[in-house]
């Protein structure tokens, strides 16, 4: 497995765009890990609460104390972006983790046993897919009320279907192979076959999908914050920082159209680079693992 991993890394390094993707993602991983050091929290028990230097709602330009300036409500943008990286990873990992588990379960059950189980599970997946993603999430948050945990639950509820279908597809593919037939013929128990034969083969498409989702999840969270349904006010979350700036992006106070450029530039740059990193990586992985690409 290790040797295969190195081979993939070599391939990624060769292509400029995918290399850029890998570097971007690594950069954000480092920022997330060293967050407490680069941006020391004021109250250790609430590190995700952005420090406020005052209460005025007019953003202040970058200064020594606030390297990226302050947002509406005087939240320190620099601190918000550093700890926002952790939020992005946290939401990403939690949501994708849970969605993967549900998807894995549903997908393998449906594909492996087939028959009416497959039909029922797939119809359920269709129903969940019946919602355009944002609408479904909004419906749940309206019912549960805003807040990060509710956002995460809503995202999980509308993400697992992608994985279920993906895994079902690859399990079906592998199931027909002879060595699986042989395994069954020898009487090896179902779960053993699944874990040892089927799942390792499905790993690659999952990795591609996960890297893509790691990009879309902070974007969805940002969209929810823009609609006022995201994380609580003052929570270090990129989406919230960007939605703070929505009324200052196009400010033409005193003739200078971009007087408050910093309120939108830094948070959106963070989201875009983070998402680009994952997207580029995912795209590169897709090219590497997709046999058709080798024409």
């Amino acid at each position, binding site marked *: 497995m290790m040797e295969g991993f190195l081979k993939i890394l070599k391939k990624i390094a060769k292509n400029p765009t995918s290399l850029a993707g890998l570097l971007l993602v690594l950069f954000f991983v480092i920022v997330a890990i060293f967050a407490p050091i680069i941006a020391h929290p004021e109250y250790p028990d609430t590190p995700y609460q952005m420090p406020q230097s005052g209460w005025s709602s007019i953003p202040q330009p970058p200064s020594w104390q606030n390297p990226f300036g302050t947002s509406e409500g005087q939240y320190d943008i620099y601190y918000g972006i550093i700890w926002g990286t952790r939020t992005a990873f946290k939401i990403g990992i939690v949501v994708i983790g849970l969605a993967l588990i549900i998807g894995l379960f549903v997908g393998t059950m449906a594909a492996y046993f087939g028959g009416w189980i497959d039909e029922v599970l797939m119809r359920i997946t269709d*129903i969940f897919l019946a919602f355009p993603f944002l609408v479904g999430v*909004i419906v749940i948050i*309206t019912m549960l009320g805003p807040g990060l945990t509710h956002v995460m639950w809503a995202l999980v509820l509308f993400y697992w279907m992608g994985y279920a279908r993906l895994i079902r597809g690859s399990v079906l593919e592998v199931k027909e192979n002879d060595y699986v037939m042989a395994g069954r013929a020898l009487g090896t128990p179902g779960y053993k076959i699944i874990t040892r034969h089927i799942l390792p083969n499905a790993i690659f498409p999952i990795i591609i999908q996960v890297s893509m989702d790691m990009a879309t999840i902070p974007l969805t969270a940002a*969209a929810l914050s823009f*609609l006022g349904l995201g994380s609580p006010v003052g929570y270090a979350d990129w989406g919230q920082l960007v939605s703070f700036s929505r009324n200052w992006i196009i400010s033409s106070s005193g003739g200078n159209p971009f007087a408050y450029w910093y309120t939108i530039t830094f948070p959106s740059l963070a989201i875009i680079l983070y998402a680009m990193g994952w997207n580029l990586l995912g795209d590169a992985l897709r090219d590497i693992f997709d046999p058709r690409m080798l024409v």
Partner: protein
Amino acid sequence: MASFIIRRILLLPVTLLGLTFLIFFFTSFLSPYQLLSAYVQDPRQLQGGNVEKLIDKYGLRENFMIRYGKWLGQISHGNLGWSLSLNEPVSVVIEQRFPATLELTIYAIIPVIFVGIWLGVVASVHHNGVIDQILRVFALLGYSIPAFVLGLLILFIFYGVLGWLPPGRLDQWAQMIFFSKNFHHYTGLATIDALLNGNIPIFLDALKHLISPILTLSYLSWAGLLRITRSSMLESLGQDYIRTARAKGLSEKMIVNKHARRNALIPATTVAGLMFIGMLGGVIITETIFNYPGIGSFAAQAATQFDYAGILGVALVYGLVTIIGNLIVDISYAMIDPRVRLG
């Protein structure tokens, strides 16, 4: 093929029923008081002393299944409850606003399909060349930009600075005519109604207002189509029949545009179909920014003002459209691919 369609149609009611059950399941998180607004035709009763009576009348404390049955009864009579945010029955709101969203999405999907497929073909032809990389990065940027940042910037550039493309659905003078008595609303789609009424200035004005939302919506979603077209193009370019075509002495252009592209279009159209449905969700942000009176901006408003009836109504409509949309996509998939059609 026919059996395939029949099976899907038979499944339709089951999926629809499943959808209503799913939506209703979400509402079970609510307290009886909050739930009441989904039933009540008139909000005044919410504050009045007889709230308790109403809760019993609609049996909001009964067990889940009975309430579900009653709710289904409500919907079948078209009573989607009262929208607290717009102070109107939800059914009226949806009637007025859904055509606007449909119009925006139809106009937005056209550039996505053209640009997405065209660039997908170009990218595949220059496989791993410079153009391919540039297109890929440019497309992925579309996937990585938060929708509202892009929307606000487009609004600022085309309206703030240049003043060409104002938000909203029609200019003030156009709305005067559009809503006047002698202007017949056949389809609810502004552009088409304008043409049917033979009023070109209104048609152009409606189109003018559609441009910036279309730019936002389409840029965000054509990356998907580009990628699918590119990979399916690469796949079909590797097939034996392409080698045969080359052996027949056909020009490279003929081979790419005729032989390879039609095969690549099959998966692309499926994705385009799914994208159309996905876009219906995507309009929520775009409509809010451009103050476009569609079902998306209503959903956003309803969500922030905790208008449960409104959200449920929107969810139901989206669910219906998506399920029917999926069916149409599956059927069109069969239509395009001759192998499936006669199979």
